[in-house]
């Protein structure tokens, strides 16, 4: 009760309302202005106060201001919603003021660095004269960040392949109704083969008059996409088999799936990549050589398949027993039951989980620097050691951060939409 009295003022009748409103706004503005002047003009209008209080004056004034305007049922719509949302108690008011002050403190320098003082024009380090970010660096290195060491004149091949794969992927959405039944077959089996052929013949080259480009030269963001695309389409069927295997009642199948899953889930990806780089060649007959990129894709696929399996198992477990019993009573065998009844429902349930696994996969791809493949983050680290462009690591990391953030954020939003769309009530 005492707290409540302390938090809301009593004089809410009309005579005093305006006085407290005006004084509240005044206090609040004094706090904000004091903070602003302190930070950007190096003048302190409250320097007459003792030093310890002085540091907190903006906060104290702001809270007093918010306290004064906290009037119940004031009759002013904006004020009421303000009080309800950011100003319910003194503690909340203090937090709100701190956040407002933090924004005033942080946002202008950030904007200055990112845009206002930044350099966009020019094509050499000397063009960067302002105090802000040097986006010229990104502009000059843009091709490297996107395509790695892939020769400049051949980069249309990467673009062409990406567009072609996208077209083939989109083709699934426009299939005529009578082919709908084969859609999953298309995505699981035919699309990977088509994309592999496209990448093998166009990006890698070597035939049809195209120059051969070794995989060591591939890199940048396009490599991120390639690795995560292939790992995703391969890890999904594998994960499905493992999930079914783990729920099987045949002991050998069950325990081998279980140990496979637990093994890959228990080790960090970086050691798996180490394994593919240094340990795997020992396991092959002398003289055989498997391309680095293929080894990496296989390693990531096995690793992510274990996680996918656990996600799918969650979906299988969430299905009510009645579904299994009903399918069996119709005389369906194990495979028919799973393909036509169980999996379509279970997979719908696990869409968000699968999307999360895929997000984790994309965020894990930078790790392939361990085996010497340089995707976007790896290229950044290479570029920042270039003697002509020393000292721009911040710009590079911010640029990569923005790109990854856009990809991951839009994907997570998309998966949330899918989740809503496929939500079937039980």
């Amino acid at each position: 009760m005492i707290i409540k009295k302390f938090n809301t003022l009593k004089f809410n009748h009309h005579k005093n309302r305006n006085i407290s409103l005006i004084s509240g706004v005044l206090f609040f503005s004094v706090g904000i202005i004091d903070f602003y002047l302190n930070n950007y003009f190096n003048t302190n209008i409250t320097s007459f106060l003792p030093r310890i209080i002085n540091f907190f004056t903006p906060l104290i004034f702001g809270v007093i201001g918010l306290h004064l305007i906290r009037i119940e049922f004031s009759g002013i719509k904006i004020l009421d919603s303000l009080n309800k949302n950011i100003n319910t108690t003194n503690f909340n008011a203090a937090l709100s003021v701190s956040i407002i002050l933090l924004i005033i403190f942080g946002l202008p320098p950030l904007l200055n660095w990112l845009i206002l003082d930044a350099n966009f024009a020019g094509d050499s380090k000397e063009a960067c004269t302002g105090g802000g970010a040097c986006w010229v660096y990104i502009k000059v290195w843009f091709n490297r960040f996107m395509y790695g060491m892939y020769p400049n004149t051949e980069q249309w091949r990467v673009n062409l392949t990406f567009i072609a794969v996208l077209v083939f992927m989109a083709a699934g959405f426009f299939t005529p109704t009578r082919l709908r039944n084969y859609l999953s077959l298309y995505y699981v089996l035919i699309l990977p083969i088509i994309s592999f052929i496209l990448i093998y013949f166009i990006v890698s080259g070597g035939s049809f008059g195209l120059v051969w480009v070794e995989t060591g030269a591939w890199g940048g963001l396009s490599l991120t996409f390639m690795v995560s695309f292939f790992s995703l389409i391969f890890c999904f069927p594998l994960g499905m088999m493992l999930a079914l295997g783990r729920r099987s009642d045949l002991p050998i199948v069950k325990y081998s799936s279980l140990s496979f899953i637990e093994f890959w889930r228990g080790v960090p990806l970086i050691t798996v990549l180490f394994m593919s780089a240094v340990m795997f060649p020992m396991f092959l007959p002398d003289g055989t050589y498997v391309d680095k990129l293929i080894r990496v894709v296989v390693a990531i696929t096995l690793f992510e398949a274990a996680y996918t399996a656990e996600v799918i198992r969650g979906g299988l477990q969430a299905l009510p027993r009645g579904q299994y019993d009903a399918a069996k009573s119709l005389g369906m065998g194990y495979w028919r039951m799973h393909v036509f009844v169980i999996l379509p429902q279970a997979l719908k349930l696990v869409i968000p989980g699968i999307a999360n696994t895929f997000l984790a996969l994309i965020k894990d791809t930078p790790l392939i620097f361990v085996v010497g493949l340089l995707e976007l983050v790896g290229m950044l680290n290479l570029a920042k050691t270039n003697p002509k462009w020393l000292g721009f690591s911040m710009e590079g990391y911010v640029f990569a951060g923005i790109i990854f953030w856009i990809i991951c954020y839009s994907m997570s939003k998309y998966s949330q939409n899918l989740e809503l769309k496929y939500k079937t009530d039980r």
Partner: protein
Amino acid sequence: MKIKKILPQLLTLLFIVLVFGFFTMNAQENMSTRGLEFGFGFLNTQASFDIQFSLIDYDGSHTYARAYLVGLLNTLLVAFIGIILATLLGAIVGIARLSPNYLIRKTASFYIEFFRNIPLLLQIFFWYFAALRALPMLEDAPMLLNSSFMTIKGLYAPSPIWINFDVFFTTIIIAMIVIFFFARYAKKKQEQEGKRLPVLIISLAIFTGLPLLTFLIGGVDLSWSFPVIRQMSASSYTFDGGLKIPPELIALTLALTLYTATFIAENVRAGIQGIGKGQKEAAASIGLTPSQVLKLVVMPQALRIIIPPTTNQYLNLTKNSSLAAAIAYPDLVLVFAGTAMMQTGRAIEIVGITMATYLTISLGISLLMNWYNKRIAIQEK
């Protein structure tokens, strides 16, 4: 009917045996052509490389086994600090996500969406190569809190010098045991007589009082060694005394904490939201105060939802700490799977040991978790 059960199992077994057999045969052949012999004898030979940062006594004259231990301890150190900080931050942000205050709520969700959608490796690089490199040189660093220096070479902080530390440490353990039995006694008393003892206050008193007593009568003493700057030559400086925390450790802990806390925050939010409104209302209607509602009704149920996914995040953090290798923090992967392997060339043994170590940690914690989950699960009749 029998065939249907046996055939798939036989095929699986055959597949596994074939794959493993193929790999072992090749490995044996490859090792014999390189003149290597499979074995762990190398662990007892001299490592002859240095490690920048180590919790235990180590230099080049120690064995590979000792180097492994140094790496493992460094990994556990990062994981331990990271887990504590991420839990604190995650709990605060998770609760802030549910705040009635619009600004707090939005700030919390902005933080979560921002940090969880950027690859962890990129964040580690950002802190190490971009943010911490902007710190002042040793000689220009301002003094923080009258004792510490935050410089480009790391954080220099005062280190404690103990006299009779073992007495102090034993007392803390004794205090914990006393508190444990006291809490059990208090619970029993409440169940039998309905009397509530002020457990928290008395526990705190025991926990601080007993160790403090040792200063008076146990001969324990504590003094601090402060870092003092010393000029070595015209442009090179160093700090004498105190504790040095390398920038690699700071960058790694910072990135791991900020990244993992976003996931823990979401778990905390989901846990608290998962408690039905009816539970709170029912608790309030039988006369519990708001703090009792939180402590006795909401939290025990919310923890049941929060703890399993949060342990998963702890495991992820521990496994992610292996990214340390990218910024040369001497963790298990860098020391053992990196340097030691380069020197000995024993790829199979070393990668095997490294993986087995992580596997043991993961399986150990998940077994513990399964046991705990069974214990706290609602017993349905």
